[in-house]
């Protein structure tokens, strides 16, 4: 089986520099701004961006680690004015850390052999096995996958989950139409063997710290909302598409909740859980904002909003039912993972979301037992005997 595809060798040369630099710049930013070194900081950012652009034009014969070492030397030279200026004592540790990390990356250590990436057909396998040059992205994926796997194993312990591979791809423009300045997106596909492939989409030219933070939310969304779709029968599944209100709205609302519950797993990543949570909230809200603001809404916003609304209504119902009120969110997670793992077709997902939206009151709306009896009855039956077919018809 072919290894999952990754960002091309030439693009990774520039991306590696950005992925080393962005966490360090973030780490030092407040201290530098506090002493008034914003111009020097801006200059350093510009130099890094320029060098990353230069890196992607380097020939394939130059290995990635050699390219980074050359860039480290150039960056050090270009930073001479800041290293000699009035902010030098604050600036010097940043430049030292940056160049040290750039010099430390070793392609042969990453591959564990003399055979390293060279723009050829082996590259994807090498990145899949090591991928030190995109180490931060791999770390984020590992955390996201762990969060999603833990949830499915908790709520559906009897279901064996398909393996999930990590893939990356680069875009020239923002890889989605959501009105938010975050330059990452994702896609999950299903390989013939039954594995899921989660692909992270990035626009390297405009990669910034907020986008790095957003990658965690995107990857949690892909792993939780898509990778285990149809897990009970992984060899026969097909994607349900971007207009699926259940995966894109309902499950996304839960993916955000799940991320907030698991911020402790972000320890070891170069940002605090609060920072990841802040960006995740911005991203998930923008996805389902269907009224045009400064930018037009995403073309899938309405179906996402409907899915999200249905999930919230179901949560409210589970809070009211005796069978689930002790922990309504747990009950909602279990029900939702169960529906996803069953692998219903798009039409069934749509019908389910529609039925919940029509059959349950909005938060605050007065309950009418005549109007709102059917869905609670079906949910009660599900809670009693786990029979999905009465719930999703």
């Amino acid at each position, binding site marked *: 089986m072919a290894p999952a595809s990754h960002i091309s060798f030439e*693009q990774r040369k520039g991306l590696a520099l950005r992925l080393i630099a962005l966490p360090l710049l973030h780490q030092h930013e407040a201290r530098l701004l506090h002493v008034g070194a914003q111009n020097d900081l801006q200059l350093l950012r510009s130099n890094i961006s320029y060098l990353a652009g230069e890196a992607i034009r380097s020939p394939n014969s130059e290995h990635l680690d050699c390219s980074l070492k050359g860039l480290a030397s150039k960056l050090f030279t270009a930073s001479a004015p800041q290293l000699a200026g009035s902010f030098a004592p604050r600036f010097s540790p940043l430049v030292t850390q940056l160049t040290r990390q750039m010099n430390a990356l070793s392609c042969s250590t990453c591959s564990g052999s003399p055979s390293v990436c060279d723009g*050829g057909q082996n590259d994807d396998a090498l990145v899949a096995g090591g991928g030190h040059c995109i180490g931060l992205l791999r770390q984020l994926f590992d955390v996201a996958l762990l969060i999603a796997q833990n949830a499915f194993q908790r709520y559906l312990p009897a279901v064996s989950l398909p393996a999930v591979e990590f893939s990356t*791809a*680069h*875009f*020239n423009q923002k*890889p989605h139409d959501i009105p938010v300045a975050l330059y990452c997106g994702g896609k999950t596909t299903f390989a013939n063997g039954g594995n899921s492939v989660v692909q992270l989409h990035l626009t390297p030219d405009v990669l910034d710290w907020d986008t790095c933070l957003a990658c965690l939310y995107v990857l949690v969304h892909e792993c939780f909302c898509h990778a285990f779709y149809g897990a009970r029968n992984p060899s026969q599944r097909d994607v349900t598409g971007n207009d699926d209100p259940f995966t894109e709205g309902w499950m996304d609302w839960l993916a955000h909740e799940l991320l907030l519950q698991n911020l402790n797993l972000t320890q070891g990543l170069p940002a605090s859980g609060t920072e990841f949570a802040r960006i995740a909230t911005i991203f998930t809200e923008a996805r389902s904002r269907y009224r045009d603001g400064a930018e037009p809404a995403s073309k899938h916003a309405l179906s996402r909003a409907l899915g999200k609304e249905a999930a919230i209504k179901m949560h409210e119902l589970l809070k009211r039912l005796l069978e689930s009120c002790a922990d309504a969110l747990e009950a909602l997670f279990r029900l939702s993972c169960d529906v996803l793992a069953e692998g219903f077709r798009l039409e069934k997902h749509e019908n389910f979301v529609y039925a919940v939206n029509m059959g349950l009151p909005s938060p605050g709306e007065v309950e009418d037992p005549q109007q709102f009896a059917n869905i609670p009855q079906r949910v009660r039956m599900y809670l009693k005997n786990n029979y999905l077919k009465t719930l999703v018809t």
Partner: protein
Amino acid sequence: MADIRYAVGAVGVRDLNQELDSLWRELQDPKSALRREAEAKGVDLQKVSGLPRNEAITVRQESEGFDPVTTAIIVAFSPVVAEIVRDLWRNVFLPRLRKHKGQDVLGEEKKDK
């Protein structure tokens, strides 16, 4: 054999044709990785060996429309070798272009005509 229409992507027609020139040159080299890749994917290259690129595959804009949503990029194949070149485009050239020039080098395939 029908042409393939795509939504306008991040790269213009002139650049796409230049990229195709470069890929075609590489394909004509018997020792090239691209040729090996095409052969490994089962593309029969005999009929296109030595053929000028623009006699096999061309890229053009559908119209001069102002709105990129309604205009399209057309990838056209010469009728004599259409089946082979279409195979080549879908399985070798387009994946290579998307990988090296960005996934959004071309928009989504349009199926409405």
